[in-house]
Each structure stands twice: as structure tokens, then as C-alpha cells.
């Protein structure tokens, strides 16, 4: 029997999340441009739409009382955002021409940086490849950026609707005409509790999906409109923020230990350590989810990393103040959807896979794509036009392909895929790609879906440090620190096959940074099939389960972590 997670598919059918509008017309909420997701892509789209509507009053008049609405499932924009992050300010400058950099939501300019190769005890400085040069970039917290962009969007006239999950795509006549929000107040078995509040239809003339990694409606749209013929792959990042007495003055990336090079392990990734202001440090471990060893736990690898003398020194005397986890789409150019628009809408940001893995950049691409989507949306709503005419939104795809987003991604397209072949070979191919600016290797490498990789149970946990509450922490206290507030008695929002091969179950147990999955007991006489138990209220919605064989759907609006420093 296979130990491939993809052979145990979750009980999920995208069709469940596609519906016709059903609210009576007087209860329906109508907006002009609907943005799903209050992250950099979505908020930039909202801001840009309002900027354009200022200049085009005729279009604004067509859009009704709520020309732009942004629906966000977290408590507020920023609450569900997590990234390193070193930001290229380019998109900020495009969106806010004339704004001084000091007024942008960055923490500090990148002064110095270093790339290190780690072994269990030592660190070796390496020259950083050009793709990773960060001169002119800024260290920032994406949750702070989200909160800041949210305020800008509101001031620009957008209606931000927090604590609201976008559950279904409203499709009528083959076109997306809006979304349906999720119900609130259902009990464990789906029953209506006394304060049950049903979701509502939001009708929109254009819908921009900017849900980020593993976006729910994004996945539904990609399926419904057959837009994704090549698999996407993801990495899981687990991050902590520490208050430290000694300021860090450079941006650091590491490779190597604790990840293993040999191809059979398929462990691709590394860590980042960034200064967040004078007295804080953000550090994280990022690992591709195509790893093969079921005992791999990114959270625990982060804990292990902190025990390395190099990292210990940076954190000495410090105190952990934040924790979080989130996936990153890593396929890059070779995993982009076939199209970025569908009848009635567009996909922007991480949800569209617009992440440059070698450069570890995605925020400015998200913002740029949001702006371009906004421009297409407004044009499509000019008097005499609708977003549902054939070709109405094609200009978005064209604009993306002409932008720096596309060019950057194309140049580095083979770098991540090369690492499927192990560290050494990957580094060689990567080096080749960099020095030829992407012209070599000439063909496109193929990506394999994360869940298709068979898993085996190794012994990595032997080296995971036991929690001590000072330097090393367990998953549950970390979930607590994320500010996670997910109602206990809500229906489970996680779809998985509950009877799977033991190796697969072990992989899920270790993979999940929030300790959602547990092995409940044996389900077969030979003991190689086990029951999987789920504690959905721990979930921080990182999305890893979707990459490795299950499916994350959004829980009740407002549930989940509350990131402030991430």
C-alpha cells in the first residue's frame, strides 16, 4: 500500500463551494469591485481602484454605494499575514508616488547581509548570489504592512469587512458574480446555535481574489475554470520574533544544517534572521513541503536551529514574543496558472503563485499584481462595458506579462525545481541559471506535487530539543502565543481522510506546526492504517495540510491567529 499522501485524498469537492446567488434581492449586498483578502495584493488593488475612480467619476457613479469592498477572514488586515520580510519598496513607490520612504511601514533599511552554510556546530560564510542581494530593500513586518495598507485603503474610500470568511464563489451564467460569506454560529455537527448568523451573498461587478497562499476561493476558481494545469508546490515557514538586548545589524540567511542534502530526503530550504528594529529579531525556518521524511517538523527544526551557536549568540539574553506559521507557494514561474483571469474576476498575489523563491520576494509582486488587477477592473467597468464580456479582463494577463513581475519570475524559473534533485545538483543548476540570467538550462524542469512524494518515517525527532520555556518551545504554547482564537465547538474546517497509512498520518502529525493532527489508534489488524484525529481549534491556517494531502477551508470569520509582528 502506498505511503503517498495524495493516495488518501480529502473529502473535498470544489463544486461544494460554487453556488448561484440565493439571497432575495433586497437582502443581497451589492458592491462595485470586491476584493477577497486583505493582504498586500488585495489592499493594493483596493487602493488603486479608488485612486482611479477619483479620476473617473463616471465609473464611480456606476458602482453604487460601496464602490470597493475588501473581505478579510482575520480579525483585521494583518492578523493572518506572515512573512520574513525583506521588502523591495518598488511597488510602494508605484502605489504611493511622492510618499517619503520614512512614512512607509518599514522597520529598517538593509545595511549588511550575510549568507551562511551551517553544519551542526559551525557556520561558513558564503558569497550571496545576485538573486539574493538586498541593497535598497527594507526589513518589515508584513502584518504591520497589512494593518498600514488597511488604513490607507479605508482612507481611500474602501470598505474593509473584517472577520468575514469568503466561503463560496457565486457563479451565474458561467461567470463569477460575487461571493457568499460563511455562516457564523454553527455547532460541532453543523447545527445552528442560538446566535446563528447565516452568510450573505455579496454581488460584485468584478471580483479580485487575493487570498494569499492556499486561498480557498482561489483554489475553487482554478478548479472551476480549469486554470491550473501544472502543480504548485509549497514550503512551510515557521517564524518567531524575539526581543534581544544586542541589536542585530544585518540580514542573515542560512542554508544547510539542520536540513540534509541527499536527494532521498528532498529537504529544500533554509532560515532567515532579520533585525526588526533596534531590539527585536525575526527568525524563521522555511522548508519545502515535498520532503520525504515523515518525522520532519519545521517547528522543531526552528527550535533546533536556535540551539546552534551562531543563532544562540544572536538570541542571547532575549525573550520570545511572537510565533507564527504559514506556507509559501514555491513553484514560481513553472507553477503559475495558465491564466490569471476568469469570467468576472482575477487572481492576484501569492494566490496566483507570484513569489520569487530565490530572492525570497513576494510582497512587491503581490502589490504590483493587485494594482494591475485594479487597472483592468476599472477599465472593464467603463460606461458601456461589463466585466463579463469575453476578453474584458484579458488586459490583466497582458499587463502582468509585460511587468517586472513576469520577467523576474521567468529568469529564476528553474532554480527551485532544481533542488528536487538534491542540494548539490540543485545548487549547480541554480548557479547556472543565475549566471546566464535564466537562459540556461534552456528547458523547463518539471515540478512534482508535494503530496505525490512518498513518505517514510525517519528518526529526526531524536535531535529535536525538548521544550524548556526559555529557548525551546513546544507547539501548544506557540499556538497560544500566536493569539489564536478559534471557537472550540465550531464545525471542523479541515478536510482529511481520517483513515490513512501510518506513515502519512505521522507526516501530518509532525508537519502541522499547531499540533492539530493526532494518531487516534489503529484502524487495521496489521496496524499500518491508523485513525487520524483532528483538533481544528488549534489551527493557525498555515495551509500546509493542503500541500501534503488534505484540504484547509476557512473556518468562521474572525477565527485564527492574530499576528501583529509577523
Amino acid at each position, binding site marked *: 500500500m502506498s505511503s503517498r499522501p495524495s493516495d488518501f485524498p480529502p473529502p473535498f469537492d470544489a463544486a461544494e463551494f460554487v453556488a448561484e446567488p440565493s439571497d432575495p434581492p433586497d437582502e443581497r*449586498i451589492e458592491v462595485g469591485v470586491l476584493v477577497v483578502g486583505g493582504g498586500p495584493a488585495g489592499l493594493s488593488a483596493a487602493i488603486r481602484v479608488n485612486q482611479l475612480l477619483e479620476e473617473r467619476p463616471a465609473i464611480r457613479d456606476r458602482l453604487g454605494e460601496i464602490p470597493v*469592498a475588501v473581505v478579510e477572514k482575520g480579525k483585521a488586515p494583518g492578523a493572518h499575514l506572515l512573512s520574513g520580510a525583506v521588502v523591495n519598496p518598488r511597488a510602494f513607490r508605484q502605489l504611493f508616488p511622492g510618499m517619503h520612504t520614512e512614512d512607509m511601514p518599514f522597520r529598517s533599511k538593509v545595511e549588511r547581509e550575510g549568507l551562511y552554510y551551517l553544519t551542526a556546530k559551525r557556520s561558513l560564510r558564503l558569497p550571496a548570489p545576485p538573486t539574493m542581494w538586498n541593497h535598497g530593500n527594507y526589513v518589515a513586518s508584513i502584518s504591520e504592512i497589512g494593518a498600514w495598507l488597511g488604513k490607507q485603503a479605508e482612507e481611500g474610500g474602501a*470598505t474593509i469587512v473584517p472577520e468575514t470568511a469568503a466561503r463560496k464563489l457565486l457563479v451565474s451564467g458561467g461567470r463569477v458574480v460575487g461571493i457568499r460569506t460563511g455562516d457564523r454560529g454553527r455547532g460541532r455537527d453543523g447545527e445552528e446555535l442560538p446566535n446563528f*448568523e447565516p452568510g450573505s451573498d455579496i454581488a460584485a461587478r468584478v471580483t479580485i481574489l487575493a487570498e494569499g497562499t492556499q486561498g480557498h476561493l482561489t483554489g475553487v476558481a482554478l478548479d472551476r475554470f480549469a486554470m491550473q494545469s501544472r502543480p504548485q508546490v509549497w514550503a512551510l515557514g515557521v517564524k518567531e520574533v524575539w526581543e534581544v538586548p544586542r541589536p542585530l545589524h544585518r540580514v542573515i540567511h542560512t542554508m544547510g544544517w539542520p536540513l540534509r542534502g541527499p536527494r532521498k530526503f528532498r529537504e529544500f530550504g533554509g532560515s532567515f534572521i532579520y533585525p526588526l528594529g533596534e531590539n527585536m529579531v525575526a527568525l524563521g525556518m522555511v522548508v519545502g513541503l515535498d520532503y520525504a521524511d515523515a518525522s520532519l517538523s519545521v517547528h522543531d527544526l526552528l527550535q533546533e536551529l536556535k540551539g546552534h551557536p551562531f543563532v544562540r549568540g544572536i538570541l542571547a539574553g532575549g525573550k520570545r514574543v511572537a510565533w507564527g506559521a504559514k506556507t509559501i507557494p514555491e513553484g514560481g514561474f513553472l507553477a503559475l496558472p495558465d491564466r490569471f483571469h476568469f469570467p468576472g474576476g482575477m487572481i492576484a498575489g501569492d494566490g496566483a503563485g507570484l513569489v520569487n523563491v530565490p530572492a525570497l520576494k513576494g510582497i512587491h509582486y503581490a502589490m504590483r499584481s493587485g494594482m494591475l488587477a485594479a487597472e483592468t477592473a476599472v477599465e472593464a467597468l467603463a460606461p458601456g462595458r461589463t466585466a463579463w464580456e469575453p476578453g474584458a479582463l484579458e488586459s490583466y494577463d497582458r499587463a502582468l506579462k509585460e511587468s517586472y513581475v513576469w520577467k523576474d519570475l521567468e529568469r529564476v524559473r528553474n532554480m527551485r525545481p532544481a533542488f528536487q534533485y538534491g542540494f548539490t545538483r540543485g545548487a549547480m543548476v541554480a548557479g547556472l541559471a543565475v549566471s546566464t540570467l535564466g537562459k540556461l538550462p534552456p528547458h523547463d524542469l518539471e515540478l512534482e506535487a508535494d503530496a505525490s512524494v512518498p513518505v517514510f518515517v525517519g528518526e529526526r525527532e531524536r535531535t529535536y530539543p525538548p521544550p524548556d520555556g526559555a529557548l525551546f518551545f513546544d507547539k501548544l504554547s506557540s499556538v497560544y502565543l500566536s493569539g489564536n482564537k478559534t471557537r472550540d465547538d465550531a464545525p471542523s474546517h479541515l478536510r482529511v481522510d481520517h483513515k490513512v497509512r501510518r506513515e502519512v498520518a505521522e507526516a501530518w502529525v509532525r508537519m502541522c506546526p499547531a499540533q492539530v493532527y493526532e494518531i487516534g489508534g489503529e484502524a487495521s489488524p496489521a496496524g499500518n492504517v491508523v485513525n487520524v484525529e483532528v483538533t481544528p481549534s488549534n489551527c493557525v491556517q498555515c495551509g500546509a495540510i493542503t500541500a501534503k494531502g488534505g484540504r484547509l477551508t476557512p473556518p468562521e470569520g474572525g477565527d485564527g491567529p*492574530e499576528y*501583529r509582528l509577523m
Partner: protein
Amino acid sequence: MRSVAAPWRDRDAREAIGIKVVVCVKEVPDASAPKRLDPQTFRLDRSVAGALNDFDTHALEEGLQLREKDAGGEVVALLMGPERAADSLRKALAIGADRALHVSDEALAGSDLVATSKALAKAIEREGADLVLFGQQAGDSDGAVLWAAVADRLRLPVVSQAASLDVADGKVRVKRQTEYGYDVIEAPVPCVVAVSDAINEPRYPSLKGIMGAKKKPQETVSLAELGLSGEEAGDAGSRTEVYSLSDPPSRGASERIEDDGGTAAEKIVEYLSSHKLI
């Protein structure tokens, strides 16, 4: 109430207009976020974004239910807090309050029970109400028992720990939960009632509510507009202070027992006896 008789005070007029409920709400650092005390002032670090106090949502819900029973009633959300706390007022509007009143003034920072109750009482008096509702306890325990202090300043009857509340014939009838069980207390309107979290299940804001919140009337009022001076607010107007913070006494060394040969139960009983716990 001391204020000049407003139309609603006239019983007939009030019946025509409907009950007016002022719900006092507070913003507190979010329940699940790690809380910190400001190392300088020792007061709760409010620089982090906050959320509407959970307990106050029960008071708000009760006000909304009363308004629903009494067509034409009005629910006003009253909040005293810094500018940033306007977000919580917006949430109260999203949940269903008709209007928001924000008492905001730099001079109010650091107000204790004495100063806070004074400002709130003035705001309520200025606004007028049939019923003033409070939530049972502030999650950050900075606002405990505010209702009794406010009621005294307003010379209004107060009933706390309401596990159920009915309004009829110009009276409230409250089932008050005490250590000994439930009392039933009646008081004429206008009065102050503090509701416990057992009284109802707060509703979620509807989407229409969330999107319509910013269009609802919101008023901001300063100390001066309440007729209060700087001396009556903030540190100057407070009568208590915080000197310092310390770690709680550690629980002390914990005693450890292994269940050797089934003796654990006896050892536990010994322990409990010696600590006078049984």
C-alpha cells in the same frame, strides 16, 4: 437623572418613542494576545490594538434584545478610551447599536475608578437614558464594579450580576446571581444594570451591520464638553496608584510523589490534611 427633562422622560412620550438604552463598553487588549504592562506606568499596555470587551457584548446584546421588543427604542454605545478605541465602538455599531458616543481626551489617560466613573456619569447624564447597561467584568480587570460607582453619581438604582432582565411597566425585573443563588430584584426605570455573561448569547454582526457601521452616527466628546476639568480626570482625578510590579510568589517547590505500591492516595490525603484542605 439630574438632566433637564427630555421628551423621553415623559412616560407617554417614551412609550411612543421606545426605550433608550445606553450600553457602556470598553476596549481591552484582545483576550488571546499576550498582555503586557507598560514598564513605565505599570498600566496595561494599550499600544497594542484591542478588541471590544467580551463581557460588554452581553450588555450590548441585552440592549439590542430590549430594543427589538420595544419598537422604536434606541441603543447607544458609550465608550471612554483613547482615539484608537473607536474601532471597538465601530464593532458595537456593526453588531447593532444605533449610535456611538466616544468620550476621548488625553487628560483621561490613567483614570481609575473614581475618575472614570465621574466622566462616564457626566456623559450618561448629558445623553439621557432609560436604562444603563454594563458588562459584568472587564477582561483586563481594570473596570470592575464601575456600574455601582456610576449609579451612585447619577443617584440611580443599580442592580448587578443580572442573569436575566425584563422591562415592563416602567420597571426592570432582574434575576441577580449571588454566591447563594438567585435573588429577584425590581427597580424603576431609569436605572443601572450590570449583566453577567450568563444572560444571553451575543449575536455576530451581520454583514450588513459590518458594512453599514461607519455610516451610523458617531460623536466624540471631550472632557470640556462634559463640563469636567483636567483635575477631575486621569492621574489628577484618580485616588489610587500603582507602585511597582513583581512576579507572583512562585508556587514554591512542588512536592513529587510516585505511586509506589499504591501508597499515593494516602500520601495525597496526608498532604491535604497538613495543608488544611480537608
